[in-house]
Structure formats: structure tokens, C-alpha cells
């Protein structure tokens, strides 16, 4: 028979072992990324690698600039499109929705978040991209496309709707449920007494919402948005299907472009030597970007106890 203290001891060491092994796995990954990307980073130089636009197999010149801008721009567009819709959804769920519908709609939002991203990718390619090409691109290029200077940037392309904006919007749709459920949880945590204080002073529902509930939830929402951005930065399958993975200057928001993840997903199988090492260098950059996003999110999210 084990004594109670011995049992506790064993349990404690097992927990400690699990915790440490998680740390070791992360460290191991980081080490792999650094070691594998070393040849490329030594060959090009880290800064040079970051600022080189070329990705050229025959000349053996690889730079992160385009995939990196593709990743950043698509994530930013995704956030800009997703945040208003998501916050609106959260407001609807907490303040407007009839009680009976609250649970079904809430569950639907959570289900949406659980759909594997490759399904978003397939849907994006087969349904959304043709829709963009047929309905959105003509309208936008006929209007914004005529503006001086920036007009070119809104010209349609003829690639079946595949491109940077399409990828960004598919990303947006993917992260909406995520931001919506975090915002909803944040709104639900606002103490009733605080809301009632506003009502008690003669505030309407909307005044209470905009002036008390949303400011009170600001930090939790900001944390959620940063985590969502981390997801958008690292999202692979949904983007790889619809961005077109083209190594060329970005001439229009509708043009095919690349992101870090789309380059990796498309080229990893056939790459070798310097190209392979450059892919690892891209991975390292993404890893660091995500790491920063998580640190930033933790600054905002209330400490969990």
C-alpha cells in the first residue's frame, strides 16, 4: 500500500513532468526552426532575408518580404472586416436576442468556430471565389478602380476570384465566431449592478451598452482580438486554397499573392537545400510573430484564476 504522502508525491511529479514536457516540446520546435533555417539566414543575412522581395527558384534567391506582407495585410483586412460583425453578433446575443433563441444561436456560433479550416478553404475556392469574381470585383473596379493613383489597386483580375482580398475575407469569416464568443463572454461578465447603475441614472439600453458595457469589456475584447489575429497569421489551409500563391508584386487587392503559410504549404514537398532552409526561416518568423501576439494578448486578458 502506498501511503497518502507517497501518492501525493507521485501525483505531483507526474504533473510537473507533464508541464515540463510541454515546455520542452516548444523549445525543441524552436531549436529545430533555428537550426534548419540557419543556412538560409547565414546565406542571405536575417535583415536582408526580411527585406528581399524575390522568391526565385532558378536564381536561388529567397526573401520573406512578400509572404510576410501577404500574411500581415490579409490578417489586418480580416480583422477590419471581422471585428464589427463579431461584436455586432455578441451584442445581439447578449442584449437583443429573445431568450429562446440565445442558446441555439450561441451554439451555432461556437459550431462555426469548430469547422476545420480546410472546409473554409474548399468553400472559399468553390463558392466564395467565383462569387467574388462575378459580383464583387466588377463593382469595385468600376467604382474604386477609377480613382486617381490608387485606382489600379482595385482593378479586377481574371484568376477565378482567387487572390488577396478573397483570402482575407475567408479568414475574416473564420475568425468571426471566435471574436464573437469572446466578446459575448466579456459582455456577460459585466456585473448586473454596474449596468443597473447606468439604467438607474436614466440611461437607455444603447447608452448603457456603449458607455458602460463595452468600455468595461474593452480589455477582454482586445485580448480576444489579438488571439484571433494570431490565428489569422498562422492560418494555412483556408488561405492556401484561395490566395493563389503567386510570387509577383502586388498590383491589385484582387490579385493572387502569397502568405508565409501558403508558401510553406505549397512548396514544402518539393523544396530542398536553400529553398527548404528559407521555408524554415519563414516558419521561424511566423513562430515569433505568434509568440508576440500571445504575449500581447496576455497583457490585456484579465488574469485567470
Amino acid at each position, binding site marked *: 500500500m502506498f501511503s497518502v504522502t507517497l501518492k501525493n508525491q507521485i501525483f505531483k511529479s507526474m504533473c510537473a513532468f507533464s508541464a515540463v514536457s510541454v515546455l520542452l516540446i516548444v523549445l525543441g520546435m524552436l531549436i529545430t526552426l533555428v537550426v534548419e533555417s540557419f543556412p538560409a539566414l547565414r546565406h542571405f543575412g536575417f535583415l536582408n532575408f526580411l527585406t528581399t522581395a524575390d522568391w526565385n527558384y532558378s536564381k536561388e534567391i529567397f526573401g520573406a518580404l512578400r509572404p510576410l506582407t501577404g500574411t500581415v495585410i490579409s490578417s489586418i483586412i480580416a480583422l477590419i472586416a471581422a471585428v464589427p460583425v463579431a461584436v455586432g453578433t455578441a451584442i445581439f446575443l447578449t442584449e437583443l436576442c429573445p*431568450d429562446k433563441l440565445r442558446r441555439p444561436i450561441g451554439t451555432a456560433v461556437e459550431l462555426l468556430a469548430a469547422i476545420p479550416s480546410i472546409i473554409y478553404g474548399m468553400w472559399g475556392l468553390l463558392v466564395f471565389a467565383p462569387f467574388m469574381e462575378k459580383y464583387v470585383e466588377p463593382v469595385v473596379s468600376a467604382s474604386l478602380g477609377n480613382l486617381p493613383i490608387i485606382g489600379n489597386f482595385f482593378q479586377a483580375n481574371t484568376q477565378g476570384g482567387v487572390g488577396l482580398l478573397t483570402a482575407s475575407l475567408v479568414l475574416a469569416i473564420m475568425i468571426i465566431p471566435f471574436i464573437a464568443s469572446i466578446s459575448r463572454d466579456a459582455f456577460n461578465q459585466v*456585473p448586473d*449592478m*454596474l449596468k*443597473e*447603475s*447606468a*439604467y*438607474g*441614472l*436614466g*440611461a*437607455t439600453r444603447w*447608452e448603457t451598452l456603449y*458607455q*458602460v458595457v463595452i*468600455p*468595461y469589456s*474593452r480589455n477582454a475584447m482586445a485580448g480576444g482580438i489579438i488571439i484571433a489575429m494570431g490565428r489569422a497569421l498562422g492560418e494555412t489551409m483556408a488561405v492556401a486554397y484561395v490566395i493563389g500563391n503567386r510570387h509577383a508584386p502586388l498590383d491589385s487587392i484582387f490579385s493572387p499573392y502569397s502568405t508565409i503559410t501558403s508558401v510553406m504549404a505549397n512548396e514544402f514537398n518539393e523544396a530542398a537545400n536553400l529553398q527548404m532552409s528559407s521555408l524554415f526561416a519563414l516558419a521561424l518568423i511566423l513562430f515569433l510573430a505568434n509568440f508576440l501576439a500571445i504575449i500581447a494578448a496576455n497583457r490585456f486578458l484579465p488574469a485567470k484564476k
Partner: protein
Amino acid sequence: MAEQKSPPEDILNVNNLSFYYGKNLALNQVTLPIRKNRITSLIGPSGCGKTTLLRCFNRMHDLYPNNRYEGEILMNSHNILEKNVDIIALRSSLGMVFQKPTPFPMSVFDNIAYGLKLKNIRNQNTLKEKVEKALRQAALWDEVKDRLKENATGLSGGQQQRLSIARTLAVEPMVMLFDECTSALDPISTQKIEDLIVDLKEEMTIVAVTHNMQQAARISDYTALMYIGKLVEYDETDNIFTRPKNKMTEEYVSGRFG
């Protein structure tokens, strides 16, 4: 309390008021007056309906579905429980202070100015004047006059509660509703708030829920004892504590139940 021989006029009259949370009867045929410029205490054991009654006065129950009032609360001979009453206006003439401080996530100044801005008072000088007046009334001005731009959540608990009071006073309500507003505070903060409540009755009417009988005895002019949703006895505070008419009141104020 010397010259209160002839009872002052009533500002509110609760007549046969019953209240239901869904099917749950929480107030049962309550009838009592609220006298103008006086302090009325609501006392009684936990769960007897004090908060429920207080929240009828400013229709706070309307925020939640399935709540139902029966009977009437008359104010200037109008029943404020009627459907077509302007609840926004009602709430700004009956201010409420809660058990715990509820500073809004904004500066001290903006907290106090909040209710004024809801009433579309935008003139900076008017706002400044009214904010200062409210903070002085709540005995908080000296402590925060140099911190008006700081976030209100940085104040101490007692200061936050006086801030909540000042914020309510700023809109110049006719009646102040206090719900155990000192229950989360230390004795010194409690003392300050009791003092300011007593000062306030010069200008307005006060209804204060408390489960602290000494507090009711110290500050109030009239006291109502409730038990399981019913009014047991309502009288001048002196009578309730020294010559109660009801046996249950006598037992309650002498601490034998509750």
C-alpha cells in the same frame, strides 16, 4: 426629530403592492407611505423583500422578463407602475445606490457627469459646477478634487461608494433609494455615509434598506419591518424600537429572531 408632530406630506404612497418574479410572489399586498424630506428605513430578515420593494420604486424590475407588479405606487397621485410611464424620467428622479460601489470604467469627473450628460447637459461650466456640488454633498470633494481626471476604479472602497452616491445626487433626484449601501464598508466609511444621508434629507426624501437595526435606529425617522413579503409594522422609528405594537416587531428589534 423634535418638531415632527404633524406628519409631513407623502411623496410616495405604496398601495396594496404585490410583486411577482415569474410565478414567485415576493411582495404581498404592501401598503405604506414615504414621507417627504424624511428617512424611511426598510428592515427585516434576509429574503423578506426589502430590495424587491426598493426596486419597484424606480421600476428596475422592468429590465428583466416575466416580472409583474400588482397594485400601485402613487407619486403626485399618478401610479408610477402604469405601462405608459416614462421610465427614463422616473429613474432620474428616483436615484438608486447599490450594496457595492459601482464606479463606471471612466474618470472620476466623467462618472459624476454621466447622468448629467444623459440629460443633454453639455456646457462645461455647468457640468463642472454640478459635479463639484454633488461631490461636496457626498463629502468626497476634498479627497478627489485633485484626482478628477483619474480613473474612478482607483479610489478606495468607501470613496467609490461615496462616488456612486455623488453620481446619483448630480442629477438632483427627488428621492434617493439606498440598498444596504454600507454593508461592504468599514465602520469609518459607514459613519461618513450615514452622516451624509442625514444631511441629505434637507433637500430630498430617502428610503434606505438596511439589515443593520442600529443603523435604522440611528438615522431614520420612519421604519418599516417586513417579513416574507409582507409589511409587519410601519411607524415612527422611535415607536418601532421602543413601543412596537406588533409582537413580531418586538421580537425582531430585540434580536430574538431574524
